[in-house]
């Protein structure tokens, strides 16, 4: 790599990666952004799962159908809202979180803007609807048949609900993996709330953006390959899960 960027190389802690830096420093930086990505997205998804799975399971287990027209409407509205939020543009979430956390914003005094916490909050808001939506449909798919079978075999309503959740476990796991896949590849939201600060809030995706802009294509490509490998691993697990689920 011969392209040299001069306006941005003064000191280690606030510059792009130098083109002539040592291999060790190169890999140190790669490791740093990879771990940052995993930490931010991992935390967001774990917290998202602990919020989204119970809500999704509850919504999937509730039987609005046939009770009354009003309840049926509530059901349709609820599902539409969840589905809309599943498709929230991350940049919009980022903007909203930015406005909340910025110094003059309602939560400004916590000083969270441009920290990993701000990025986690952004991704948390993004993944919760995904986890709710996928869990809800996984539970809803098996709800009727499994619940009736369990009741017929002598289960109480509570035992039957537990049987439904057990049968939907592959779907619940799928929701978590899908959410992680969305989070780790997300860039717009965390760029706004994390600020892409080197060594503190720079992640795989934001680093790819900045290194590409700076012309550091070897680094950008390395990061891209790492991201792609993580994505591949996620999809591999998903495919295996779906193949197991397809036997039903």
């Amino acid at each position, binding site marked *: 790599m011969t392209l040299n960027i001069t306006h941005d190389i003064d000191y280690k802690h606030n510059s792009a990666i130098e083109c002539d830096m040592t291999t060790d420093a190169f890999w140190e930086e790669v490791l740093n952004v990879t771990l940052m990505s995993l930490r931010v997205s991992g935390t967001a998804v774990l917290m998202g799962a602990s919020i989204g799975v119970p809500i999704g399971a509850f919504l999937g287990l509730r039987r609005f159908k046939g009770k009354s027209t009003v309840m049926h409407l509530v059901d349709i509205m609820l599902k539409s809202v969840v589905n809309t939020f599943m498709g929230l543009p991350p940049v919009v979430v980022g903007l909203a979180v930015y406005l909340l956390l910025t110094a003059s914003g309602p939560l400004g005094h916590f000083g969270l803007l441009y920290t990993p916490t701000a990025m986690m909050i952004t991704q948390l808001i993004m993944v919760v609807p995904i986890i709710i939506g996928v869990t809800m449909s996984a539970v809803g798919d098996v709800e009727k*048949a*499994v619940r009736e079978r*369990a009741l*017929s*075999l*002598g289960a109480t309503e509570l035992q039957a609900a537990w049987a439904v959740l057990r049968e939907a476990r592959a779907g619940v796991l799928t929701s978590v993996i899908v959410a992680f896949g969305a989070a780790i590849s997300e860039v717009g939201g965390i760029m706004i709330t994390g600020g892409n600060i080197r060594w503190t809030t720079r992640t795989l995706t934001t680093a790819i953006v900045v290194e590409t802009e700076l012309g550091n294509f070897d680094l950008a490509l390395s990061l891209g390959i790492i991201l792609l490998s993580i994505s591949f691993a996620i999809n591999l697990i998903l495919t295996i899960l779906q193949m197991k689920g397809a036997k039903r």
Partner: protein
Amino acid sequence: MPVVVIQSLSKEYSGRQVLKDVNLEVQSGEIFAVVGPNGAGKTTLLRILDLLEEPTSGTVSIDGISIDYSSKDRTAVRRRIGMVFQQTVLFNTSVFDNVAYGLRVRGESRVDIERRVKAVLELVKLQGFEQKDALALSGGEAQRVALAQALVVEPELLLLDEPTANLDPRSVSVVEEALSRINREMGTTMIMTTHNISQAESLARRVAVLNEGRVEGVGTFREVFGRSTKAVQGFARLENVFYGVSRITAEGTSLIDIGDGLCVEAAFERVGHVTFHIPPEDIILSTRPLTSSARNNFEGSIVQVVDMGPVVKLKVRSGRDFIVQITKRSFGEMQLNIGSRVFIAFKASSVQTN
């Protein structure tokens, strides 16, 4: 002593009457069959008996105690009843855990569970299947696991919804044998729905004909099918049931004139009026005239196609309508459609009567 008494039971789904004023009494320890065409309300009736649906009006009582469908806790009543669904639903776990489920929710001890699961798996001829993945079983094996699930808790009343529909012949005989043995040894009362009249007749003592939600006849087989009443007309809406005048041929078979210029040859000897049926799966379908040992050959055209999952049911019009069951694969390969000219054939020994 009647154990199940159904009184003026009706069920309505969004304005459609599925069951209309059904009255039935099932005696303790008997196997009772409910026959009728698709959509007659057979499954709904069983689902109400299993407390999975509430009747719109009417009552059901078991052992003289009327079931309270509005009660919050219906588990106690349900625990006395076992049901095998037509669509097999197994849990995504081992065969053992599937069969043990009913015992576990009842809080039985581990030792007890092991012993009873083992015994019931032997009964349905699935010994050694304990650790197999339940969702990887064949259709027949899965249905036998479902039967084991219901039997392991030793229910007083067993409800069976088309327990052998679309099963392989070996599974059919295993299921039938297990049912009659359980009935004999445990005195379990059973109510089964079926399309298969000869199965109903071999297992059950009494039968009810259900048609369009109404009971059109109830009694022993002779009482219901032995006379040409309205019940028989209802029965005629089952598949391939014909009525005709029979005479004996020189070869010792019967030739039955069913009208419309059609005569059916049967491998039994009967003279006079006879009601008989031909199982839809016994009829061979071909796009060309067949040369075979089948004594009955007719030409017709397809007037209706009903997708039943792995199999397809075709209505072939040849003076009279015949229902023919073929696999979906054959249906695709033969490129059949409504209006296709086809030839049907069945053996004299496929013609069944009671």
